[in-house]
């Protein structure tokens, strides 16, 4: 079972109305991106982190590990903004390297940091949703957003098949490794190719069997299943609105002030 999926099921926020969580994370995410403000980003990062860890029950170490993945990616991609190689030193910092300087301007450093912070806070919004909402509940959102039934069914089946194929892949890999498939690069590549083709064939066969099984339960082309419903709570909605208003006022105030 995938870790994020597992946390989604165990989260203390699981039984909060899905639409509430969805609207909250999407609105916060939009405000983070639109405001591009340090204070908004830090506030979002801290408060959503607190919600996910404290209320959701995700271990701090795990949350930091999860945040590290996008953080590394962001650092690498903003490196070009933060660092310059120039013959003349810029105002923020300058490290001499022979005839050149590894340097950066205050403006670009601030811009880079702002970009990293607002992106990280946007990621924290998405983590908030994915670490507190299992995929089963997300189907309900898609339905409410009037997403085409075909896409929802595809979403449901792909989600299920990810795990089926992952377990198949793991079984094939174990079987290959037990027969020294990774003896050298050549055998490893060959084994990987073998696994890919085996998985493709098994996926086709399994989809056929799954369709038979669904048909045997009177499937007529539309997947009908009971969806989880958790009633929205007034208190939660008020807190969310207040939080969004706070972010909005910081954004507007900053724009007026600047």
């Amino acid at each position, binding site marked *: *079972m995938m870790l994020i*999926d*597992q946390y989604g*099921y165990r989260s203390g926020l699981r039984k909060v109305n899905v639409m509430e969580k969805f609207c909250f994370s999407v609105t916060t995410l939009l405000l983070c991106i639109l405001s591009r403000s340090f204070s908004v980003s830090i506030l979002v990062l801290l408060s959503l982190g607190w919600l996910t860890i404290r209320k959701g029950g995700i271990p701090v170490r795990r949350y930091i590990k999860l945040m590290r993945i996008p953080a590394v990616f962001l650092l690498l991609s903003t490196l070009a903004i933060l660092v310059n190689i120039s013959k003349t030193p810029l105002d923020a910092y300058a490290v001499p390297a022979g005839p050149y300087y590894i340097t950066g301007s205050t403006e670009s450093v601030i811009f880079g940091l702002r970009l990293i912070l607002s992106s990280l806070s946007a990621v924290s919004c998405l983590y908030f949703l994915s670490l507190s909402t*299992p*995929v*089963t509940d997300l*189907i309900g959102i898609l339905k409410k957003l009037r997403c085409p039934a075909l896409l929802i069914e595809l979403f*449901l*089946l792909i*989600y*299920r098949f990810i*795990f*089926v194929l992952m*377990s198949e892949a793991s079984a094939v890999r174990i079987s290959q490794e037990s027969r020294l498939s990774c003896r050298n690069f050549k055998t490893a590549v060959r084994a990987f190719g073998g696994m890919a083709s085996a998985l493709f064939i098994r996926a086709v066969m*399994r989809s056929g*069997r*799954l369709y*038979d*099984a*669904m*048909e*045997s*339960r*009177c*499937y*007529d082309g539309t*997947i*009908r*299943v*009971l*969806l*989880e419903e958790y009633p929205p709570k007034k208190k939660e909605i008020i807190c969310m609105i207040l939080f969004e208003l706070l972010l909005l006022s910081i954004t507007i105030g900053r724009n007026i002030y600047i």
Partner: protein
Amino acid sequence: MKTESMITADNLWFTYDGEDIPALQGLSLDIKRGSKTAVMGANGSGKSTFFLCLNGILRPQKGALSFCGAPYSYDKKSLLNLRSRIGIVFQDPDNQLFSASVRQEISFGILNLGADNETALRETEKIMDALDITELKDRPTHALSGGQKKQVAVADILVMHPDIVILDEPAAALDPKHTDMLNKIIDQMTESGITVLISTHDPDYAFSWADQIILFHQGKVLKAGSPLEVFSDRPALNLTNLSQPAVLSIYESLCRKKMINEKFPAPRSLMELLHFIEGI
């Protein structure tokens, strides 16, 4: 009651696309209402193909199938009606479970029968309660153990209240604890009057549980009859790669040594045999 035919198959033939040898080669049999039938035979003898034909998933190229005296009809409405009355639990639950959570999975069948959400929820919860899987209701299906997946697969079918339940090798890949649990569920089904067909390779279980054994060999019925009748036919057992149930072998051995009078009916389980011996 048990004399009424539920399913009659007459000279069924079926060949899969691209195959030369037919999977079913003139299969004929009769299943009575409320009966407990064990279908046995070597791998590739046509058991699963026959089950798919019973559910209307496969259509025999030759021969006739009838349900409660009415011949099978393959239009959409008739198939839906047929599938609502004949449920099949597949051998590998991973081929059956498709939903993200257990509750969603179980509700699929009953919602397809046209039940409203309220009824579906009530029935789903009732069946989860009966099978003691209520605590799994919010769990994703991929996070279940093999035994739990099998329980959910059975619940999938029972929620539709079928007249016949077919279980294709229900104990395959299950540990003894989950096998016992599943056997209890099968007993509950038969007690509630559901006609149950299972395919199994376990002669001990088939001998103790079934009231009819059907041996399949190369796509047709090699032998059908009471468990004692079928399991006493050693040539038929050899042909289908089956062994005699342990209890019957011991019983026959004791009879040969005149330790038990042959007039006594053969015990169906080792426990019965034990009581038998203690009573001597």
